[in-house]
C-alpha cells in the first residue's frame, strides 16, 4: 500500500535570498539575482556574470551551525560553498517542519530517516593545483583531516554525510549526480522511499555551486552560457528570441518529506503533496535533446501516471526553461505533445529567468518555488521575455506575476546527457488536513 507523501518543511539558499520566503518574494516581484561575478575575478572569460548567493559564507555557516554539528562541518563549509548551502537549507527545512513543536520522526527522530541529495561536481581548486605542482611542495604535516580532504578536490558526497551526522539521520543517504536533473531526481527518489515505507521521513533536495574558475570556464568552453555581460539582469531570458545561453546560478534547497499519516499524527503543517515522479532517458544526443522531445515527454507522462492524474488536471508547469537555444523549443514541443489543445492555456513559467541555472540544485529550488507560488495562488513571472521565440509560443507569464489557483503543478528538469525528471506537486489545500 503506497503512502501519500507530503512536504512539511522547506529551506532554500538562493541568489534571491537565503530562505524560502525570501526566494518566493523575490520571484513574485520579478527580481533578478544575476550580476557580475564577484566570487573570483573572471578576467577575460567570455562569461563574467552569474547569479550568486549574496550572503557572506561565514554568516551562512554561522546560521547553519545553530543546528549543532562539528567543526569539520564548518571548516568544510567555508571551503566548499555547496556544502554550506546544503547544511543551511537542511537546517531551515527541519526548523520549518518542526513549527508545530514536534520534529519529523517524533520520538524516533532520525531512525529510518535519511537524506537524498543531488550534488554538483567535486570542487577543484586551481590554486591548490599550482601549489601541488610547485617545486619542493610538501603536504602540511599539521593539516587536519578536513583540511586534507578539502585540498585540491572536495568530494561532493561530504555534504550528505555532514547533514546526516548533524541531524542524526540513521538510514543510508542517496547521493545523486544526474547533473541538471539531480535535484528533481533526489526529491523523486525520496518520495518513492517514503511512499513505499522504505524510509520514515527524508530530507531531499539539491545543492550546487559551479561559480569558480574551472566551473565557469568549462561552460564557456561549451559555449553554453550567456555572454550578455553588460546586462546581467537581462541575460537569462528563457523562451525569448534573443536568448544566448544560460546564466550560471548557485544555491540549495531541501524539503522534508514524510507520510501524510505521520504528518497528521505529529500535527505538522502540510505545505504540499508530492503526488508523482517520473524520469527517463532521451537515449539520443550528448548535448542536444531528442528532436521530438521523446524523453521529456516520457518523464512528464510517467510523473502524471504515477500521480494518477491526466494532462487535463495540470494547472501550471514550472519549466526547465534554461534560456539556451536548444532546450527551450524542445521543451515547448514536449509540453504541446503532453497537453495537446490545452497547451496554450496552461501557464508555463521559468524560475531560471530570475535565479539562473543552479544545475544540481535547480530542480529542488524550483520545487520550493512552485510550492510557494501554489500556496499563494500566484504564478511568478518569466522575466526578460520581451520577444517570444515563435517556437516557444506558450503562456509563459511574461514580466509580471499573475493570480492563478493551482491544484496540480508539474515541475521539470532535463540534464545535459539526456536524463529527464518531472514531479507532480499537489496543493496542500487538496490534501486532507493540509494548510488552508
Amino acid at each position, binding site marked *: 500500500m503506497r503512502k501519500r507523501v507530503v512536504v512539511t518543511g522547506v529551506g532554500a539558499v538562493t541568489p534571491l535570498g537565503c530562505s524560502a520566503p525570501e526566494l518566493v518574494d523575490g520571484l513574485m516581484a520579478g527580481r533578478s539575482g544575476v550580476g557580475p561575478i564577484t566570487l573570483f575575478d573572471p578576467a577575460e572569460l567570455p562569461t563574467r556574470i552569474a547569479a550568486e548567493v549574496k550572503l557572506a559564507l561565514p554568516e551562512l555557516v554561522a546560521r547553519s551551525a545553530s543546528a549543532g554539528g562539528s567543526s569539520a562541518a564548518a571548516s568544510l563549509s567555508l571551503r566548499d560553498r555547496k556544502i554550506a548551502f546544503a547544511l543551511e537549507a537542511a537546517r531551515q527545512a527541519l526548523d520549518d517542519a518542526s513549527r508545530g513543536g514536534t520534529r519529523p520522526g517524533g520520538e524516533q527522530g532520525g531512525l529510518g530517516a535519511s537524506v537524498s541529495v543531488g550534488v554538483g561536481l567535486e570542487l577543484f581548486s586551481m590554486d591548490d593545483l599550482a601549489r601541488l605542482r610547485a617545486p619542493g611542495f610538501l603536504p602540511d604535516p599539521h593539516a587536519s583531516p578536513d583540511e586534507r*580532504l578539502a585540498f585540491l578536490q572536495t568530494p561532493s558526497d561530504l555534504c550528505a554525510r555532514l547533514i546526516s551526522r548533524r541531524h542524526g539521520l540513521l538510514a543510508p543517504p542517496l547521493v545523486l*549526480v544526474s547533473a541538471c536533473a539531480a535535484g528533481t531526481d533526489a526529491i523523486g527518489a525520496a518520495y518513492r522511499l517514503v511512499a513505499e515505507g522504505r524510509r520514515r521521513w527524508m530530507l531531499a533536495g539539491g545543492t550546487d555551486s559551479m561559480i569558480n574558475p574551472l566551473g565557469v570556464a568549462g561552460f564557456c568552453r561549451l559555449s553554453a552560457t550567456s555572454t550578455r555581460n553588460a546586462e546581467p539582469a537581462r541575460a537569462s531570458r528563457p523562451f525569448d528570441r534573443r536568448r544566448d545561453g544560460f546564466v550560471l546560478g548557485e544555491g540549495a534547497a531541501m524539503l522534508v518529506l514524510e507520510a501524510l499519516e505521520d504528518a497528521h499524527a505529529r500535527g505538522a503543517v502540510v505545505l504540499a503533496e508530492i503526488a508523482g515522479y517520473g524520469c527517463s532517458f532521451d537515449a539520443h544526443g550528448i548535448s542536444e535533446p531528442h528532436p521530438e522531445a521523446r524523453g521529456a515527454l516520457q518523464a512528464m507522462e510517467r510523473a502524471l501516471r504515477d500521480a494518477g492524474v491526466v494532462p487535463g488536471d495540470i494547472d501550471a508547469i514550472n519549466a526547465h526553461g534554461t534560456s539556451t537555444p536548444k532546450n527551450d523549443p524542445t521543451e515547448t514541443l514536449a509540453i504541446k505533445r503532453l497537453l495537446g489543445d490545452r497547451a496554450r492555456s496552461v501557464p508555463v513559467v521559468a524560475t531560471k529567468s530570475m535565479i539562473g541555472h543552479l544545475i544540481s540544485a535547480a530542480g529542488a529550488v524550483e520545487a520550493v518555488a512552485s510550492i510557494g507560488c501554489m500556496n499563494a495562488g500566484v504564478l511568478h513571472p518569466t522575466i526578460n521575455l520581451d520577444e517570444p521565440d515563435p517556437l516557444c509560443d506558450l503562456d509563459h507569464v511574461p514580466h509580471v506575476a499573475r493570480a492563478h489557483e493551482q491544484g496540480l503543478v508539474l515541475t521539470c528538469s532535463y540534464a545535459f546527457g539526456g536524463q529527464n525528471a518531472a514531479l507532480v506537486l499537489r496543493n496542500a489545500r487538496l490534501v486532507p488536513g493540509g494548510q488552508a
Partner: protein
Amino acid sequence: MMTGAGGDAREPSGAGEGGSAGEGWVVTGLGAALGAARTAPAEAAGGGEGGARAALVEGAGADPSPWLKVKKSRKFMGLQDELAVAAAGRALASAGLGGVALGERAGLYLAVGYIPFEASDIDPVLRGSLDDEGRFSMPRFSGDGVHRAHPLLTFRCLPNMPAYHVSVNFDVQGPYIVSYPGPGQLYLALDEAEAALRRGDIDVALVLGVTHQRNFLVEHHFARLEPPVEPQLLRDAAACLVIEPASRAAARGAAVRVFPDGHSVAYEPGDSLLPLIESFSGGAAEPPGEAGPASLPLRLWLEVHAPPAAPSSATGPRARVGHQLRSRDGIRAESAWVIP
C-alpha cells in the same frame, strides 16, 4: 534472510514466485570491463588463481567499439564511459539481450566513482595559468590556460556521462538512478532497481557500477586518506548485472546466472572517513584492490564466469556467496547470492 536499506522485512528474492508485483527477481546477465593498461591480468585475477580467471579478465577490456551505435562518438568518451558501455554490453549479451533495443521498459541503476582527471589533461591548463612566481593567475587562466584544455574534456569526466553512453547505445529509455561515489551506493542503486521491478515500472534493470581511479585526481584523493590507499590498489573497472523478474526470465528462456538471497544496507554517519572493510565469501581468490562501486558486481561476475573451484554437488547450487562491506562514507552493506 536479510532486508533492504530501509530495514523493512521483505521476502527473499528468488525464482519461481508468481505475479508481477512483489515477485522475485534473478540475475540473468553479468558483464565486466577492466582498465587493462595499468592492471596486469594475473594480478587482476586474484593472485595465484591464474588460468580461467586470468583469461576472463584479459578478455574483459575496456574497448567499447563493438557496442557503439556511432563509432565517432568514442571521441566524447572517457575511460569510465568506455568501461560502462563494455560492461553493459557484455552483461546484456550474457542475458541473451545482445543487440536488443531495450526501450521504455528498461531502467539503468548506476553508481559512479569519483570524477577522474588525468594529469595530462590538467597540466597543460595549469602551465598556461601560472604567473611569474608560479601561482595560479586568473588573467592567465582566462587568456591562455583555459584554451589549452581539450575541448571535449567536460564530456569525458562528468559523472552522468556513463549513464548517457549506456542509454544511447542500448536504447535504455526507462527510469534511472545515478548515484555516487562509493561501493555502498551500488547497493542503494540495487535497491531502487529492485523496487522498480516490484512496482512493475520496468521489465529489466541494468545495475551498473563504474569507476576510473587510476588517474591523477582520484589517486590524490585516496592518498590523503588514513590509512592512505596506494595507487596500485585502485582499479579501473565497471561491472553490470542484468536483473529481471524470475517469471520474465523463464518466459523468454533466459538462463539464471545468480539468485539473490537478500541484502541489507545500514548506515553509520561519522565525522571522518572510515577505512574500507570489504570481504567476499565466495571464491578462493579475492580480486585485489578497490573497485569502488563496481566491487559487488565485479566479484559476482568472477564467481559466475570463472569459478574458483568445482561444484560442490552435482544437483545442488554450485556456490553460495556473500559480500560484506563497510564503506568510507559509513554505509554498511551485505548480500547473499546463490549461483546455480
